[in-house]
């Protein structure tokens, strides 16, 4: 895939505070998650990508073009969904989205058509004729998404799109993001504090910490690797005896919580063998999966990587 964003020694300083420090790297995924603690510089990076202020040094290229020189042209290809409440008051949603489309250069009637299309796509029905002031939070988020996609940009920058949404609306927003990603016509940069959102939508992540890149990796590849660790959840029968029997096969194991068993598969041992043991002992295997390095582990490693170089994985420290 051709790169979306190329960072080359990008630094951004406000007054005397350096917010982004010498960022270098390439971002190529279809949907990229931007992660990092508060104050790491995510918002500043997004503002720099949008050309709201120039880099203090270094360059950043979007689709191969330098944002410092081609900001205006690039902005026509970028859609932005801000984190904070943003809308134009006293205007119906259709009118609002249409205005946003016209500001991108789309002629008036075409803008009206595309506004309706975008609103239909995000699922705002009759509500589109009401003023945005009267919308609930979920509808405002959908309206923000509509104005971000109305001009069909090639890069969508979404800042906390599921903020404050209740579960069904969040599921719908995630579905929309996945559809846009899968359509292949737009790349996505998703900034979120909810690792679950990033895990469901993104295939690459960029982790920032203290203004530097702490990690930049491809989630798909991480997920395919490592097929040795297995987690089971059981019910019924004697869990301890079952676990010991697994140990008898030569696998290392550990009991966790009241129902879980974690184990490391040995060469020559198959899952069939586990089932055979379960059958013999009348233990239900309610859940079984390979434990791969999930996003939370990657994130934790990135956060701690600077301090002691070694990674802490495994238990998941209460993160989801």
């Amino acid at each position, binding site marked *: 895939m051709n790169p979306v964003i190329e960072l080359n020694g990008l630094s951004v300083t406000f007054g005397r505070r350096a917010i982004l420090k010498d960022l270098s790297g390439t971002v190529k995924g279809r949907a990229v998650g931007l992660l990092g603690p508060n104050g790491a510089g995510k918002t500043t990076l997004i503002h720099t990508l949008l050309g709201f202020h120039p880099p203090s040094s270094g360059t950043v290229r979007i689709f191969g073009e330098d944002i410092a020189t081609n900001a205006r042209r690039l*902005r026509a290809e970028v859609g932005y969904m801000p984190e904070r409440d943003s809308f134009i008051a006293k205007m119906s949603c259709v009118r609002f989205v249409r205005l946003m489309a016209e500001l991108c250069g*789309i002629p008036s009637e075409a803008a009206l058509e595309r506004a309706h299309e975008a609103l239909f796509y995000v699922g705002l029905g009759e509500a589109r004729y009401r003023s945005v002031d009267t919308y609930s939070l979920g509808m405002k988020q959908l309206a923000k998404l509509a104005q971000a996609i109305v001009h*069909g940009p090639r890069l969508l920058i979404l800042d906390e799109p599921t903020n404050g949404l209740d579960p069904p609306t969040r599921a719908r927003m995630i579905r929309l993001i996945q*559809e846009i990603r899968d359509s292949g016509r737009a790349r996505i940069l998703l900034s979120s504090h909810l690792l679950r959102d990033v895990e469901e939508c993104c295939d690459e992540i960029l982790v920032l910490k203290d203004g530097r890149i702490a990690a930049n990796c491809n989630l798909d590849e991480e997920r395919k690797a490592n097929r040795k660790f297995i987690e089971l959840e059981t019910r019924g029968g004697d869990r301890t005896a079952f676990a010991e029997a697994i140990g008898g096969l030569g696998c290392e194991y550990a009991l966790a919580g009241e129902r879980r068993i974690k184990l490391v598969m040995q060469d020559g041992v198959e899952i069939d063998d586990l089932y055979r043991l379960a059958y013999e002992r009348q233990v239900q295997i309610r859940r079984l999966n390979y434990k791969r390095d999930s996003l939370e582990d990657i994130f934790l490693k990135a956060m701690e990587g600077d301090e002691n170089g070694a990674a802490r994985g495994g238990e998941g420290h209460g993160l989801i």
Partner: protein
Amino acid sequence: MALFENSYRPYEGGLTPEWARFLVLPRYALRDVFGSKFFTAVFCLCFIYPLVSAILVYLRHNSNAIAIMQIDVRELLPIGASFFQFFVEVQGWLAFILTVLVGPVLVSRDLTNNALPLYLCRPFSRAEYVLGKMTVLVILLSLVTWAPGLLLFLLQAYLEGAGWFASNAWMAGAIFVGSMTWIVLLSLLALAISAWVRWRVVAGAALLGMFFIPSALGGVVNQLFFTRMGNLISPAALMGSIWRGLFGHFRREVGSYEDAWGRGFVEVVIREPPLWASWLVVALICLACLWLLSRKVRAYEVIK
């Protein structure tokens, strides 16, 4: 039967010219503004005086009508520089009223609702935003100031003949420049106040205050110190000087006081500030407004 899929697709049609993008804002704003019946009524009222003036111009040239109405021609004011200057002044004040009605919310609403990032993440600059919002006022105020003014001028020229037109063509320029200067000053002040004051009522009051308070203060200074330098802080007085200048009625010496303080009579000549000073102050006010706007119209706030 064919099934149509509604999926995400890019836009592949033609685009509007870049220079004209800022006009999108006045198009939308004007439709909203005229959606208010109150405003439309006030707007229409602003045309009463131009209508009256047109009738006066017509009457001067129609002897039959004069005869019928038994008006003494000599009592009618001559149509000249004073006439048009008075017209510009009256319509200028009506323009001020329109600005107080429309101006305060132009920028403040967008700032309150954090709409600036949405504007600026598009191929649309801060300058275009300010220009677009200013154009709303410029269009509205032009329609009530120099547009009817020039029409009136042309009516007069048509009725008086080519000779009058040739010797008075400069007045058309004066009407246009005088009105536009006022429009630009008003618009920038209204936008700057709108950007810095969030509440509509307070912004309206601030705009009114911007004119009446300095006028009052200037007046006090003038009286106390037997001068007219106080006019320099009053936008109304500044514009007055500028209009007089444009229409050829500017006099620096405005009068004299006899100072009777028991030591005998002393004459104090009171002069207005020179014309260039008024223009300079107006220009400085406009620049200050632009600077204020540039501080507030941004995609994000920087907190130190």
